[in-house]
């Protein structure tokens, strides 16, 4: 099998899975982090498609600015509980002092 195609197959699988996980996950913060990862993987996809200009735009905007924008908005959303962001119900290991 063509090694390039194999690489592409791995990349596409990861891409689709990350997108699905970002949109389906319960935890909104986890969704945002997965969306940042999605931008990174997609940028590599543009490179493989032979579109380095698009990869540059995606890297600059998708990985950096969109992530910062989403995180800043998430932090400002009212009505979050006093818990640390992103804690899972099942794994509450507080490594930080309680307020």
């Amino acid at each position: 099998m063509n090694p390039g195609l194999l690489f592409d197959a791995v990349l596409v699988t990861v891409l689709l899975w990350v997108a699905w996980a970002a949109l389906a996950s319960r935890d909104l913060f986890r969704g945002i982090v997965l969306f940042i990862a999605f931008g990174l993987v997609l940028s590599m996809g543009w490179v493989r498609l032979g579109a380095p200009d698009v990869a540059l735009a995606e890297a600059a905007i998708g990985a950096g600015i969109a992530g910062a924008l989403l995180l800043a908005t998430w932090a400002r959303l009212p009505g979050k509980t006093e818990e640390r962001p992103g804690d899972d119900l099942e794994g509450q290991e507080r490594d930080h002092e309680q307020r």
Partner: protein
Amino acid sequence: MSSASRPPGEPGLLLRAVLALLLLAAAAGVALALVAGQVAPGLSGAVAAALPDSGASNPVTAVLLNFRGYDTLLEMAVLTAAVVGVWSLGPAPRIRETEPSPVLLGMNSVLIPLAPLICAYLLWAGSSRPGGAFQAGAVLAAAGVLFIISGRRPAVHLPAAPMSWGIVAGLGVFLAVALAVMPGGRELLEYPRGLAGALILLVETAATVSIALILAGLFIGGRPEDEP
């Protein structure tokens, strides 16, 4: 997502089924078009043939600023409209005062000067290889975002007036250049031969600064207010 934990308002089975059906139909249509459809020759050849006259040797830049300049002109208008929309929603939220950590300040002092350097490099590279105004503008905006996030007092509320002028400068310069070439029987955005390279560079530089300011303005999340 197990059905047992589904809250009462969760969309019903019918909605899910109809949605799945519609999506599958759409996917089947596109798949059919992709697999069975004829592959059109595309525009690579046409772009390559016209490239020597365009003023840029990177085909993507040539398409963006010359062959499909309308797209980019209107895109600048959309960006300006978006920032007007965000600013019209209200003043920028006041950031709670926090003393920026020395680690952050040290990192900023390394990263922020690097951004204009890489921005200029991408702008310069854009005419001959991957790069260009949007990418350069986004890198410059990242420096602005870092500056805003680090939350030092003067940076939180950027002076509104110079920022507004900078934001409309990209659209303004692009429009001015597009109209300025019209005398002499040329159409809108039809750059004269020989001057095309210089005009594209002018438009790109203005667009880069504008895009950086627009993205930073969007990040602020509201109308910037000068110090009370």
